[in-house]
């Protein structure tokens, strides 16, 4: 039996987009255990509830993460709206859905680019990010921010998307779809890509279930979980089914996310077709929130949980954010067992880690 040794991996590493540290216990080139440690970029956002009132916290919440920013803001607003017991206007629900799906598309395209970079396909990485740029332009056109939208407010949304902008979104997603099909062919059919992804980092359905994996990472292992099915925003009016794969390897995760990109385009088309013509965008709320609520939203990386407890004062008593990467870290450590040391960088990427979200 080979001698065991420990290799520190991260927090500064060329392949890691964000700082996570892993102590890899290796036998020769084989990893036998991975021990994670986080806490390098803790910002104390949750404790800001003492200093910012519940309206200001909307802007703090959506800055938890740069990539799933809109969904963080939406999760917090939905939680506070439930505490107030207000029903937001129908158009605002559809607008939230449209922005959420645009956010999901740009996040998945970013991930595809990083994955391509991870397995050394630079050209594919450029193409994914080139396509993503179109989505970012849509986000800037509709909300004013390329990544941070700042359109959510307690009771609805602050900005409308007029009909001409909705038409532009439709024509842009047609272009994106055509370009994505070219990229999809390479990701799913190319021999070199398959050699790097197939059978690498397998997490079985039972393991994923026991470890509570969320989002595309869990769905790629065959777990049928999608918080959009709980029916927040306008998702009850949209016809869609979670994209599930049963292989549980890196290829399945890639396949799942590419499937979700096409699904997001479909959801966008349905939402734009069904959006009601209303002028009202936000229901005004009076007073301060009093009560607690546990909101679950489906972010691009998986299920995020927003727990808000308020006590009738302008400052919320407790805000707890559980992000999908935090739920997926045990799955990552399990998946890394018995893998080659050379695959570690790629495998960490396959869970789409967002460490700054996780540490808040």
């Amino acid at each position, binding site marked *: 039996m080979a001698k065991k040794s420990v290799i520190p991996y991260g927090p500064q590493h060329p392949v890691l987009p964000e700082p996570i540290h892993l102590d890899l216990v290796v036998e020769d080139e084989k990893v036998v255990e991975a021990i994670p440690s986080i806490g390098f970029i803790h910002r104390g956002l949750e404790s800001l509830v003492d200093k910012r009132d519940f309206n200001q916290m909307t802007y703090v919440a959506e800055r938890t993460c740069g990539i799933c920013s809109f969904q963080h803001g939406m999760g917090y607003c939905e939680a506070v709206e439930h505490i107030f017991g207000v029903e937001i206007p129908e158009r605002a629900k559809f607008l939230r859905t449209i922005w959420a799906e645009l956010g999901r598309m740009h996040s998945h395209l970013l991930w595809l680019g990083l994955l391509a970079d991870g397995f050394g396909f630079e*050209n594919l990485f450029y193409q994914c990010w080139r396509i993503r740029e179109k989505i970012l332009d849509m986000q800037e056109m509709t909300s004013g921010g390329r990544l941070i939208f700042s359109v959510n407010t307690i009771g609805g949304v602050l900005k409308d998307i007029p009909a001409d902008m909705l038409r532009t979104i439709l024509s842009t997603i047609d272009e994106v779809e055509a370009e994505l099909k070219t990229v999809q062919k390479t990701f799913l*059919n190319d021999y070199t890509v398959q050699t790097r992804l197939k059978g690498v980092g397998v997490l079985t359905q039972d393991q994923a279930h026991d470890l509570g994996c969320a989002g595309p990472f869990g769905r790629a292992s065959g777990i049928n979980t999608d918080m959009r099915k709980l029916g927040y925003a306008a998702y009850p009016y949209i016809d869609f089914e979670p994209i599930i794969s049963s292989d549980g390897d890196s290829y399945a995760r890639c396949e799942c996310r590419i499937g979700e990109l096409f699904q997001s385009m479909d959801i966008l088309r349905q939402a734009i077709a069904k959006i009601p013509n209303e002028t009202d965008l936000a229901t005004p709320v009076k007073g301060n929130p009093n009560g607690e609520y546990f909101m679950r939203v489906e972010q691009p990386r998986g299920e995020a949980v927003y727990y808000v407890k308020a006590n009738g004062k302008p400052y919320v008593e407790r805000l707890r954010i559980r992000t999908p990467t935090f739920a997926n870290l045990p799955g990552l450590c399990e998946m890394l067992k018995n893998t080659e040391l050379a695959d570690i960088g790629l495998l960490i990427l396959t869970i789409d880690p967002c460490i700054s979200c996780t540490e808040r």
Partner: protein
Amino acid sequence: MSVMNFAPEALKNLFKKPVTTGYPFVPAEYPERSRGHIEISIDDCISCGMCVRCCPCGTLSVDRIKGTWTIDRYDCIACGYCVTKCPKKCLFMKQGYQEPGAEKASVTYTKSPEVLAAEAKKREEAAAKAAAAKAAKAAAAAEKN
């Protein structure tokens, strides 16, 4: 499964124009709604301080007597909350991002001397009116006694 199926795309890209633009030599184009930075139409401001109270990062300050509105642009997160809260709608988001600088300095906007003089006159009138009302009230109370 196929081999080198991205090669046609890569070859096509050799003969296409670059997707990137030549910023800063080519000026950036911003959409109409772009939240670049905050501007103020200072003469319309009533120095109510609503923007100061609502700012999530505490970057604004207002001096009613001096007629100034100060922003530390390096602290501002361009969320636009002050713009939605301003009762006189004198704050607005403008295209173009804050330029980098060597020092973290704040910018102060001061009202024009005419507006300041008019406001001072209004304040004096209001003070005189209040003093007159107080004197009348005191006189009425004295008469009653």
